């Protein structure tokens, strides 16, 4: 058994996907994206300033113009990366945050599209992040397009999806094809297990590597500074993590 927690691999992967960014925005209840951004900031400390805006957080809120400022600053090109989830995600990276079934009288109603119908177009690096990796989430075709994965060439679109990270693996997105390529499988998963859990077709190399675990230095940073920073905004998540770490250190 690995001495690295699954969530630590996810957070490290997020930090890797954020390489080179200067400003990451994270939704209100997104502890793992926030942790990934905090890790990125810690890793880049001596090279560049990485700003992290957590919506709804007082500590990590650089905004003073109300809830429109996130969208305005994204429109100005000041936000380099953002995370999107989705009740359904399909093979063209279309995202559905509205519901299952025939709109508007859907069978299952989710909250709604939030800002996705805008941010997906203007933020250069949108990372699709959804832990649940099942055929009901990863579908062939979404029932409602809250935000489309690709657009016609004449549509103004400096932004879009670059990757899909789930509890099972990491995909990159190729907008020219368009479609996903499986880049790596997390510990315990395989091409077969992922294929079974995925409702859409995807490309992959003959042999798909395992998602790398953090090196020792990164893991140390993660479990000290990042965990401490995260605690302010996501105390419950941090407590869970600490509990799991304590369990890890018990000899097997």
């Amino acid at each position: 058994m690995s001495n690295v927690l699954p969530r630590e691999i996810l957070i490290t992967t997020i930090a890797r996907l954020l390489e080179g960014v200067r400003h990451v925005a994270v939704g209100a209840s997104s502890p793992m994206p926030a942790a990934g951004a905090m890790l990125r900031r810690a890793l880049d400390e001596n090279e560049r300033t990485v700003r992290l805006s957590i919506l709804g957080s007082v500590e990590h809120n650089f905004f003073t113009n109300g809830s429109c400022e996130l969208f305005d600053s994204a429109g100005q090109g000041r936000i380099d990366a953002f995370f999107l989830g989705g009740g359904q995600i399909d093979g063209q990276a279309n995202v559905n945050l509205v519901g299952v079934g025939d709109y508007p009288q859907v069978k299952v109603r989710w909250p709604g599209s939030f800002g996705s119908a805008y941010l997906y177009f203007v933020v250069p690096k949108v990372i699709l992040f959804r832990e649940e990796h099942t055929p009901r989430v990863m579908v062939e075709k979404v029932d409602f397009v809250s935000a489309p994965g690709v657009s016609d060439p004449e549509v103004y679109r400096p932004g879009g999806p670059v990757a899909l990270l789930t509890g099972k693996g990491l995909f990159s997105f190729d907008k020219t094809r368009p479609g996903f390529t499986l880049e790596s499988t997390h510990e315990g998963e395989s091409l077969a297990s992922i294929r079974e859990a995925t409702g859409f077709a995807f490309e992959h190399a003959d042999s798909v590597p395992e998602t790398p675990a953090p090196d020792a230095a990164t893991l140390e940073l993660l479990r000290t500074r990042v965990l401490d920073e995260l605690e302010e905004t996501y105390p419950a998540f941090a407590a869970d993590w600490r509990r799991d770490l304590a369990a890890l250190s018990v000899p097997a």
Partner: protein
Amino acid sequence: MQSDLKRIVSKLHSGMRIAVPVDYAGVSMALTRPMIEAGLRDLDLVCVPTGGLQVDMLVGAGCVRSVETSAVSLGEAGGAPRFNAAVKEGSIKVIDATCPAVHAGLIAAQKGSPFLPLRGLIGTDVLANRPDWKVIDNPLSDQKDPVVLIPAIHPDVAIFHAPMADRHGNVWIGRRRELAPMAYAARETYVTVDRIVEGNLLADEMTGAGVLPALYVSAVAEAPKGAWPYGLWGEYPADVDELKRYAAAARTQEGFDAYMSETAQQGEPA
């Protein structure tokens, strides 16, 4: 205080289009129950840009005809049960938007402009279900450049809760600036506040910087902790346990009705 709330509610009528803020910006929960008790019907709610408990309660109580919103949820406490049920039943009309489009519509109204253009949206089912939004080819571009026009949103009324106001009707909204476009855009604006302060909030540059001037405010009522169980920025946190209690109860209409009657006499929390 209760009479001030009732006086405000007496200005509201069935069929009005009412703008309400996002859960963390200052929701006037203090006005929600008086609105329900007044028997308002056929309200068209505009969530700026998303809704929560207030919307769910008004829907559950049968006050609502339509909800224009980018999302409705109870946040940590989960989905909005009465809203979701009403959407599935088709008993309310849901007009799905996206956050910056709601802001764009209000800012168009703020500026006295007929519309604002907004990037994004093209190819979404959000746009496909908005016959009031229109795609045009950007007239300032030499190339084909489709862009969506969002018409101005002119609510009859805007309602929100803020930490304080003075006796002149100036309301301190701090950095929750989205409350200002709501008021600019609306014909009438009613505000509840945790406290009324002496003096003039506009007289000082520091307090003045966060003020929505009385020019835009039709009436203010004092309602201590009037955002509860939501929190109020800089004042008190959300009461997540109460939100969860509501969420659990309101899974059924019966549970909702029971919650509402049990808590009717409760007033504000201690």
